[in-house]
């Protein structure tokens, strides 16, 4: 086999953020005419690495060599000019512009005739590029009216065309979870097109679906905790091996205060029956008891987020019921669910969890203002007392109760969100990635808080950033895949399963 030319080489790449090292001395190579699969858990460093690849962020250390030349990218536009581009999960096409307009956006100069854009020239060029990716939709269709598959293909086509425009041999296309939004048929089409494109480009494939990676890549690179684990030829890889390497065998027990894990009480707090939402998840049943932490685990597209949204009243399911303490809940109304006693720690505390422009006290007291009323009016002293109590309880580090939330650190902001719900005496709490973007110290305190909640009998559903965190915190794990509940695993204290045992059911 001829030794392939490396087109792109990243060496010893390191990138840190306050409190967390995202990448630690990572090496990454892309050869000519190949498909490289990049795998790793959430937080393994994949997205950081890719952002560095396309020039969105700069590494703290390390070298970036493209076609034998060292480069330092200033922005994604420079990456594009060098033939490196990425197709993001959400897509970056402007929705109201047509396929053709999006294809050539900002690079229409080559089609100018007498000062005006020649539609015919653009159409001819568009046809030839789109033929490569087998898109036959009418060129004037607004992107908003096209299917996700077509949109992806158009983005791939654009990258290829831009590479051609800038005379870059062997462009590198990075595809971030391309198959999440595709049907089975469309996935096969995608991969057949990719293997054709391989002859003139290289593709980096990021996906959680190990099956796809193993079947369609030439080479697989595995990252974990910001470091290289290994890389292997795809035809020599087996899915279980890859899984093992992704999640590792070690498991830090004391990190999650496992000794404080509580045995669930007998009383059922939340009962979900026959809950379903067409196209998102199929009928699902489960219940959660007092003091129990149930972890909901699954890939993007498994439906777990939608299940939680139905529980918190943000979305209406198509069938089934949710009962809290025996009483059935109404649909699609957060005020109903909140009133009944269900709390929600949202994934994005800044946009969904707090009023950043208001004080800690105001945020903490949001749900319980009625409690401070004297003769119908809110008493400021009572308010302050309540706020101070919870600031202490949750160990929120804030100069005062009237500090603006915007001035707190991420961890303390998160604790404020938790305090808000605690203050209102909920029975059930949904935690959506509670430690995301939180530094190590605050993380520990949040775990402590969560344990304390279980002691008070509060039942919880939790979705964590890493499998390890899920296993560590929960007493029971529900695994969802492609919209169905596929497995239920018990995670009792001191007898926790290891991530590698579970990963197989998830991917």
């Amino acid at each position, binding site marked *: 086999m001829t030794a392939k030319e490396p087109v792109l080489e990243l060496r010893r790449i390191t990138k840190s953020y306050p409190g967390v090292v995202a990448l630690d001395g990572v090496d990454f190579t892309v050869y000519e005419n190949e498909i490289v699969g990049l795998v790793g858990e959430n937080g393994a460093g994949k997205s950081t690495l890719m952002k560095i690849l396309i020039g969105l962020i700069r590494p703290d250390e390390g070298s970036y060599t493209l076609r034998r030349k060292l480069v330092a990218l200033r922005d994604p536009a420079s990456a594009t000019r060098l033939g490196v581009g990425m197709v993001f999960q959400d897509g970056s096409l402007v929705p109201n512009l047509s396929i053709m307009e999006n294809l050539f956006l900002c690079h229409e100069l080559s089609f100018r005739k007498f000062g005006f854009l020649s539609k015919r020239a653009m159409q001819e060029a568009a046809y030839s590029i789109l033929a490569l990716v087998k898109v036959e939709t009418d060129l004037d269709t607004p992107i908003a009216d096209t299917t996700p598959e077509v949109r992806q293909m158009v983005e791939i086509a654009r990258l290829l065309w831009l590479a051609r425009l800038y005379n870059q041999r062997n462009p590198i296309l990075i595809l971030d979870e391309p198959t999440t939004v595709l049907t089975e048929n469309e996935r096969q089409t995608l991969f057949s097109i990719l293997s054709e494109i391989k002859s003139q480009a290289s593709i980096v494939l990021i996906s959680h679906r190990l099956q796809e990676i193993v079947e369609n890549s030439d080479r697989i690179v595995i990252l974990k905790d910001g470091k290289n684990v290994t890389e292997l030829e795809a035809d020599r890889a087996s899915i279980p091996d890859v899984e093992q390497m992704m999640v590792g065998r070690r498991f830090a027990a004391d990190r999650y205060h496992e000794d404080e894990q509580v045995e669930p009480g007998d009383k059922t707090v939340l009962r979900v029956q026959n809950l379903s939402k067409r196209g998102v998840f199929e009928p699902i049943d489960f219940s959660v008891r007092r003091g129990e932490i149930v972890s909901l685990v699954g890939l993007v597209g498994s439906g777990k987020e939608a299940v939680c949204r139905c529980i918190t009243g943000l979305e209406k399911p198509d069938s089934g019921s949710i009962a809290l303490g025996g009483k059935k809940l109404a649909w699609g109304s957060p*005020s109903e669910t909140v009133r009944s006693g269900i709390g929600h720690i949202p994934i994005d505390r800044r946009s969904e969890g707090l009023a950043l422009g208001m004080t800690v006290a105001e945020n903490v007291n949001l749900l319980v203002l009625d409690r401070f009323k004297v003769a119908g009016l809110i008493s400021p002293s009572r308010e302050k007392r309540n706020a101070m109590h919870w600031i202490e309880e949750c160990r929120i580090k804030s100069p005062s109760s009237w500090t603006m939330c915007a*001035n*707190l650190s991420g961890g303390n902001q998160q604790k404020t969100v938790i305090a808000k719900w605690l203050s209102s005496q909920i029975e059930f709490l949904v935690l959506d990635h509670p430690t995301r973007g939180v530094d190590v110290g605050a993380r520990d305190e949040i775990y402590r808080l969560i344990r304390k909640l279980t002691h008070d009998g509060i039942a919880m559903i939790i979705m964590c950033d890493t499998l390890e965190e899920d296993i560590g915190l929960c007493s029971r794990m529900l695994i969802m895949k492609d919209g169905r509940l596929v497995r239920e695993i018990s995670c009792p204290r001191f007898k926790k399963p290891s991530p590698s045992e579970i990963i197989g059911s998830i991917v």
Partner: protein
Amino acid sequence: MVEVKRDGPAKTKETTTVRRKRAGIPAIYFAVTLLLVLVFLFTMGNRNFLSAYNLNTIASYTAILLVVGLGQMNPILIGGIDLSVGGLMSFISVVFVVSLKTIGIWAFPLCIVVALMAGFINGNILTRIKIPSFIATLGTGGILTSLALIVSPLPVDAPPSTYALLEVVNGTLLGLPNLLLLTLAVFALFYVILRFTTVGRNIYYVGSNIRMSWMSGIDIVRTRNFAFVLSGLGAAIAAIMQSCSQYGGDPALGKVYILQSIAAVVVGGTALTGGTGGAINTVVGALILGVMENGMNVVGVDAYFQQSILGLVIIISVALTFDRSKTATIK
């Protein structure tokens, strides 16, 4: 559907630190400083500025502006705006005088109720039909202006027989002019609502982060409707006060107040983005405007040029108080 929202293209800046508000100096200190500076400047320009007579003039002018400003403050606090206050004031002004003749003292409650309804409709166009408040109120304002002109195309005088009723505003109580007392009462009402009631506090939550408020179970429909009802209340009371002082109604009364009510609110430090500011800010803002208007007259600035300056002041205040971290793009 997808787990992470805008993981890719949107975050071009790695900002893990939070954007801090300007040097921790709340807008109110800015506003008060501005007020004091203005008073100082005008006094330098003309010693009579601080005379009792002049201060009285300022007070009368500011009172009405403050009342309508306190109303306008509420839609602005929730992040919207009420451009119909002008039309509403005009409408109430003529309806008030006309109904004084027929139903006497019942004209007062009638006008209040009508204004509350108008505010309620404004609110619902926003909350139920989902039309942005600045367009909705632009439309309703136009309609109300028309209605005012239909009721009375020309200014209408209050007949002397009703003068006794007008004493509610024009008279004095314990030596203090009713106008001032009423203004104080309105201020107290709005202050208490915003500071000490749940629905008032909810106005802040909704203005600060509407999505979070919704997710936390706050009734955002009711809260926003209420904000517009309060705006209608402010406009109505101001219109009644003005009509009483002028002994007549005027279908063109409200036109200037659209700009001025917004100015009073914004210049006092309440951000257009909502969620910050309040009644005291509006008081300072109204005073600044009153002082400016009076001061410019006393010093001899042309009346129309004053409008330009007002526009400039608004632009600058907004530039300083607008919370840019709230929107990814400025439209």
